[in-house]
């Protein structure tokens, strides 16, 4: 299955990033890798849009950044969720869930398709 370009779903990208960071603080490279891994290679974040997204989320106050040493002893910028970010993630997840249910309800095979 072709990797989905997440550019079109900017809101979804934000939500996924928040979710990844909910588990543990991570740097930009790690976030992209984690999304790829957890989606079983389906979702490949276009790296060029990941960093602007991170900066936007930081500006909005949902994540905050801290410089630390990475696993290979390099200096890296780690992001983590703020309290506002936690709340935002909950809201986003909730509205995503409702949307998914709504779409699934429409697509239910109650009648024959095609």
């Amino acid at each position, binding site marked *: 299955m072709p990797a989905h370009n997440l550019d079109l779903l900017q809101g979804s990208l934000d939500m996924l990033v928040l979710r990844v960071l909910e588990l543990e603080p991570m740097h930009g*490279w790690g976030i992209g890798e984690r999304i790829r891994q957890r989606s079983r290679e389906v979702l490949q974040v*276009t790296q*060029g849009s990941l*960093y602007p997204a991170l900066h936007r989320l930081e500006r909005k106050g*949902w994540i905050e950044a801290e410089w630390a040493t990475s696993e290979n002893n*390099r*200096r890296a910028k780690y992001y983590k969720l703020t309290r*506002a970010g936690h709340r935002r993630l909950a809201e986003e997840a909730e509205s995503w869930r409702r949307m998914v249910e709504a779409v699934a309800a429409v697509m239910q095979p109650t009648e024959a398709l095609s």
Partner: protein
Amino acid sequence: MSRGGRGRREAELDEELRFHVEMATAENLRRGMAPDEARRRALADLGGVEPVKEACRDERRGSRLEALGRDLRWGLRSLRRSPAYAAAAVLTLALGIGATTAIFSLIAGILLAPLPYRDGEDLVVVRQHATRLDIENLQFAINEFYDYRDAARTLDLVEHHSMTFTLLGRGEPKRVSTGVVSWHFFDVLGVGMLHGRGFQPSDENAGAEPVLVLSHPYWLEHFAGDPEVAGTVVEMNDKSHTVVGVLPPIPQFPQEHDVYMPTVACPFRAAGEASRVENRRAFSNLTVFGRLRPGTSLAAADRELAGLAARLESEHPDVYADAGYGTAAFPLRGELTENARPMLLLLLATTLLVLLIACSNVANLTLARNLRRERELAVRAAMGAGRWGLARQTLVESVVLGVSGGLLGIALAYGGVDLLARFLGRFTPRADSVAVDGWTLGFALAAGVGTGIAFGLVPAFWQRLDLARVLHQGARSSDGRGHRRLRLVLVGGQVALAMTLLAGAGLMLRSVQALSEVDPGYATEDIVVGRIPLNWSKYADQEAVSAFYGRLLPALEADPGVAQAALGTIAPLADEFTLTRRFTIEGRPVDDEALQPQLDQRAVSTGFFHLLDIPLVTGRLFDLRDDAAAPPVAIVSRSLAERHFGLDEALGQRLSLDGGDTWMTVVGIVGDVRTGSLDTAPADTLYQPLAQGGFVQRAFLRGRQPERLAETLRQAVWAIDPEQPVDDIRTLTETRRESIAPRRTTALLLGLFAAVALAITAAGLFSVVAYTVGQRTREIGLRMALGARREEVVRMVVRQGLAPVAVGLVVGLVGAAFLGAGLRDYLFAVGPRDPSALLAGAATLLAVAIVACVVPARRATRVDPVRALRVD
């Protein structure tokens, strides 16, 4: 954003992306790519480092402007929903900012703007002093000027002195204020002629044809602004003077003159020039200015002058020894503004206080308003603004209010500046260079932004919004106790400031009142005084002068409208020169001239004392006995008699003004007369009869109708000599009023500012009490339902409202003590802690405060208690 911040962000962005590229490269290497292939793929996958950086920057940059735009729109919408609040805030701020801006524009024009002369910072005034003799400004004699001018290497020096001559040949004889100056006076000042030429070196040669330069206003008024005026000839001092040039319209220093002439054209200086060989200090009337030569500093000039002074002292020990003689240079700018500076700074301090009061008032209003819209703010905060974002939004709102207040304030200032400039014209010649200009506008806008931030910070910091509590609780959130305390503190602060201003105004007003009650020692009702400055070349000797006055006095007395007529040397309070002379007392020889006592010398006609109601203490007044052939006599003032002889011993003593060549006998003692200004002590004065010599130029007339007296005087003089000008005719009541005028205007200004401050404070107190009462409607309803009388409730509210007022009053009284100390120089007969002024101020404040509390309190008690209790 600061440049350091931006640089840091760039560096961080760079490092973040570099880390990413390294990780991606490492991953690619792990997958088996060649090293440069790995890196290339990593960069390509990223889409290039620069585009990503640009996108990140956009996220941050666009967001900031975007946020500001959003805040602005939200703020405007919010203000539109509270028009009363917005109007009150803008008006209050406009008052405060308007006052401050007006004063600032004056300061900018007078104190800060560059001098209208080329390189004005290099211009200096040079002054001699004789500290041992208590003389701060020892005017230069011709010899002294030449010595310094020829020897100084750090300065180009020019001389100046002021004369009043009669100008003939252009209609009515006119008195012209004449500046007598070195030929290169204007060159040194850096002023070019508007028309024609200035003076040249040959104009200062002995025997040169006299020339004139006209000042701009004089040229406009009396020469019709004719650009071809050069070559016109006028008569002055019995010589023909040719006009050679016209000055441009700049402020003249040291004073405004009508015309200028070179030094050789002044007959008095010429006389001094002739006698300066034997008399070291002949014609010591000169003021000296200079320009620093390129490459030197004021300090270097000072040192050189000090050295020259020391040399002169050793060369002429008989004149300068033991006098504490020295010479120094002072920047010209200070001279021009010295008189106005303390006044301006005082006014600035006052308006800043008013501005502070206005700010705290608006802060109070804002606090109240924010409490009302707590829900709205909480929602904003929950929508992601965060505490800082919310504070920023409310700050934007208050800055909008501040700038609006600033714009309105500019309009107010524009009207007020004109008035103030005219007032300050008394203190400095620069007052007309004041206008509302770019600097002022900038200041007003900056003040608007500043005050917006200032009063906005208070509520912004105070917002401790517990979102859940507010959103879920419904109506009022906290009981707002801390909130109310803050508002009361603000009110207390306003009261303190208002009290300080009121005290200052009170002190000044009391001073003015005391000044106007000072007994000057002479009558002022129904007396007109005019100046008859005799043309000295025409009336060259005592005989001619006596002949003139011998005809004038009888002619005046014969007029039916004139009750009494007299002649004297100077008019009281007219800010004229005084003839101060040293004198010797017979039997008390004093060798050292420097230690001789001094007196003011006056000549008067026989009717002088009677006309002015100056009392005779003992002895007799002048009468017809005391003519030119009789033995010289004198009348002295009481202070002189007491100081040197004691009242009983003065009669019969003999004094000499010329070192013992001639002696005058004291025949009478009269009361003291204040002639300088009302707040300085009367000087020791000696009067001589007109017939026995002395210099008069003032005619006094006493009669019923002052307007007619002026015309009577003119006609009488012209009947004798049609070419003799008569000017400066006014009543003594006028001169007296004018001498108090500066202080009165200051007092009125302070009073005005104090009144504004009081009004703002009262409004603030009113709003706080009204709000508090509104909060406690239920409690009040309860009390009244339980039987409390209305007066009791009102008294309770008023008492609580007055608590911060009382505290503010006490603090304000302390502040008033400081202000009083600062005002000390302007006060007259009133101590800086004068109790009556402070008490009056406090009483006014208290009265206003009580009214401000009572009104809302009473309104609250009128509410039907049942309805009040029903409030949810």
